[in-house]
């Protein structure tokens, strides 16, 4: 198969030329995949509290705390995938550092949770978290102030990743860094952040990160009820961000974004401010990833610098690719599916897991360029 150098190809480095990639789903309001997604989310929102709180623990249908956490985790990953699909699938910006925004949101939430531990830590210091006492901090670093207030922490969850995305995107898009170059420098970004957060001097707990959280807003994090509520919030957040993303891509601005993906130079020549479209989409995507991270931390109970590892960002890209790029709901489905496979295989056949994951990437790229959603759609068309 030889590379075709068409004029279209020249302007859109490494992107698909086929406009059919986008889910048009039969026009506006005909978002059948999205309807399915929201229906499944609603079903989970109803079933989980029922199976956990009402069904007795002895029953085979009882959902354990572990199960709730697992579902919550998958959904947070799904949200990260959603954020990534928005910029990759619709705007052609392949970020290999999106887990950085996820981790930053997580760290902001983790800082709030650390402050909530109070005197219940190992050292019992009312102000300083354990690791600071351990590292001989005398007082709280300036950037830790305010994190004992939940609204402030919530604001930071969105602000910090958003600001980073803004600064990074402003530089990158203004100087028209595109394609592979952009991917590589996003990777450099998350790698640099990982190295920085591994340092003890940063004041973020070094390689241990934050863990051993006690409660959130006064509710015990270890109780099933809190877990169920956290999961419901996550479901709401996924549904809300999905709807928001869908609205964005279906708006007039969304059409411009698509145009940028397919023919960036042409869109620019038509007079659209390409850089600011890309920038705001990137910032929005960064914020969504940050919120996903903030929801992830209280449920999983730990955040450490390995969340910044470049491989995490690459895995997120894979989820999107497996699910189906440029569909939004496909990204969420891919994230849940791949992570479910991961949980199952690492438990059942730890040796096989990496083989399976590797094979999935290769096979999906070769044979399912539109992911599982593409496969399903092909089926339904034939039928």
């Amino acid at each position, binding site marked *: *198969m*030889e*590379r*075709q*150098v068409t004029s279209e*190809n*020249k*302007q859109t*480095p*490494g*992107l*698909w030329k086929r406009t059919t990639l986008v889910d048009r789903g039969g026009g506006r309001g005909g978002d059948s995949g999205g309807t399915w997604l929201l229906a499944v989310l609603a079903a989970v929102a109803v079933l989980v509290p029922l199976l956990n709180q009402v069904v007795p623990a002895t029953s085979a249908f009882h959902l354990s705390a572990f199960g709730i956490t697992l579902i919550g985790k998958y959904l947070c990953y799904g949200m990260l995938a959603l954020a990534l699909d928005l910029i990759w699938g619709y705007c052609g910006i*392949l970020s290999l550092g999106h887990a950085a925004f996820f981790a930053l949101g997580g760290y902001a939430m983790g800082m709030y949770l650390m402050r909530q531990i109070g005197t219940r830590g190992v050292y019992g210091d009312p102000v300083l978290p354990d690791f600071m006492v351990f590292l001989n901090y005398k007082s709280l670093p300036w950037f830790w102030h305010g994190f004992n207030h939940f609204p402030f922490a919530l604001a930071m969850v969105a602000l910090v990743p958003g600001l980073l995305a803004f600064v*990074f995107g402003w*530089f*990158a898009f*203004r*100087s*028209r*860094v*595109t*394609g*592979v*170059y952009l*991917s*590589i*420098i996003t*990777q*450099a*970004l998350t*790698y*640099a952040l990982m*190295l*920085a957060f*591994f*340092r003890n001097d940063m004041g973020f707990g070094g390689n241990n990160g934050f863990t051993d959280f006690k409660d959130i807003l006064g509710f015990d994090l270890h109780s099933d009820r809190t877990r169920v509520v956290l999961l419901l919030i996550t479901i709401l957040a996924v549904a809300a961000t999905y709807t928001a993303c869908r609205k964005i891509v279906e708006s007039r601005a969304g059409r411009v974004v698509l145009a940028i993906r397919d023919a960036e130079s042409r869109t620019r020549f038509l007079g659209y401010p390409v850089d600011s479209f890309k920038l705001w989409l990137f910032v929005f995507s960064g914020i969504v990833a940050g919120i996903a991270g903030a929801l992830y931390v209280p449920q999983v109970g730990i955040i450490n610098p390995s969340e910044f590892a*470049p*491989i995490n960002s*690459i895995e997120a*890209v*894979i989820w999107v*690719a497996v699910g189906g790029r440029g569909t939004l709901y496909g990204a969420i489905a891919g994230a849940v599916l791949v992570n479910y496979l991961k949980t199952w295989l690492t438990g059942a056949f730890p*040796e096989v*897991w*990496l*083989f399976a*994951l*590797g*094979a*999935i*990437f*290769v096979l*999906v*790229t*070769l044979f399912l*360029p539109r992911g599982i959603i593409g496969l399903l759609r092909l089926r339904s068309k034939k039928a």
Partner: protein
Amino acid sequence: MKRLPTGGQWLTMLLLALVGVVPGRAQSPKDAAFLSTLGELREASYSDKATIAERLGQSGHPSVRAVLTALLDSRLYYRNSDQKIFIVKSADADPLSLIDPLSLKSAGSAAASDMTQIGTNNGLRSVLRMTVAHYSLSSPDASVRTDAVREMSRSLDEPAVALLRQRLGVETNSGVRKEIATALALAALEGPDGKARLDAIATLKSSVDQDVRNRLALLLGKNGDGSFVESDENVRKAAAGAVATIDHWRTFYSGFETLFFGLSLGSVLVLIAVGLAITFGVMGVINMAHGELMMLGAYTTYVVQSAMPDHIGISIVVAIPAAFIVAGLVGVLMERTIIRFLYGRPLETLLATFGVSLILQQTVRSIFSANNRSVVTPDWMSGSLRLNDALDITWNRLYIIIFTMIVFSLILLVLKRTRIGLDIRAVSQNRAMARAMGIRTQWVDAMTFGLGSGVAGVAGVALSQLTNVGPNLGQSYIIDSFMVVVFGGVGNLWGSLIGGMSMGMVNELLEPYAGAVLAKIFVLIALILFIQARPRGLFPQKGRAAEDR
């Protein structure tokens, strides 16, 4: 102190010297006398021990130096059961491994509780040091003599100076002569004669040794009562000048050393990136499995070494072509089965090759286990080349620079001077036209990818000498290699060379001020900012091909 060889090295040197000189000794009367004198050490007081040590020295027995060095390092023991005296290899180990004091051959081992150490004190140790130095001064090995002079110059007294003067008269090796002159000049600094002190300073000026510098700087200080340590103003001026000169040279050499470190780190970066520069730069394939191909090269080195455990020195040389072939074949296989379906879609090659990288990692883990494998560094690569007192150049750093240069030149040679190189360049410049001219582009693609992968394997051989060989080896280098290629400009080998070298240099220049991790973070941030300024790297591709990626 770090200049002094450890006891073990003393011993090896001595053993080496002895092997030729003393073939198969039986216990002669001389040995017996030596042993009985040695035996007296068990009961003697410290002052008696000093006289015993001197008597041992006069005995002229070949193992005098080994025994006295051992005593000096508190490595001389006697066995409680039969009172026999032994040298032990290391006093920290338990059981102690014993060495016979006569033959200096291994004599089994014994539990630490069965042995008693022969103690020393400060006075005794200084006597021992002199005696050992005396012995070492007449050693046939110039490096042993140099070390002895250095050791003596720490505490110079009348007899030591006399000894050195005497040696200077017969010494032929220029390095040792210089060392002795420095030591004598240091001694002269203490003397009453102002003229002699001035001469001494003139001699010392040419040294770059830290100790000499400190000694000279002492002359500039003041005593407690405000008077100068050195009363002669001329001498003070000369000393100040000498200190400034020495500082100047030391700064120069440390700058040179940083430069050298930067070059060697840069060479590593170039080496890991140059294979990628071919697959990524020339072919436009984002090969995330590049790191794993390096890992395969490193494991090939391990396998080759395991196959020829008696020839570690050559095994590295054998491993280089072996690694090239192994990684190259895997590369060709990858190209034929996966990558050829993805040309023109670089971001998708990223996904597929990432999958391949996971499979390769797990394969290695299944075959060799997840633990790190140890690859032995051959003797000719360890140690260092000592240029002067301020500059040590380790061989492995030097070799990596040379190796990178060779690999780089070979790649250039292949690309510019061979038929396949011509084909590769033609296909990368204009695929359709190349095919029209009758070039088998598919075959060229496979060869190009194989070449890039093979070079990655060769880089892996070098990495096996620098880092742990484990399944994660590739992951820790893949990002660096991408940075280098992107910094240099995709599709430009020279860009990768200059990019890698300058990144290594900047990293090493920052490291003394910021520490290793911060330096790396700065380099990454600098790279991100640099890409903003030049979105296509240092040497962007020009013309139609550039638009394509």
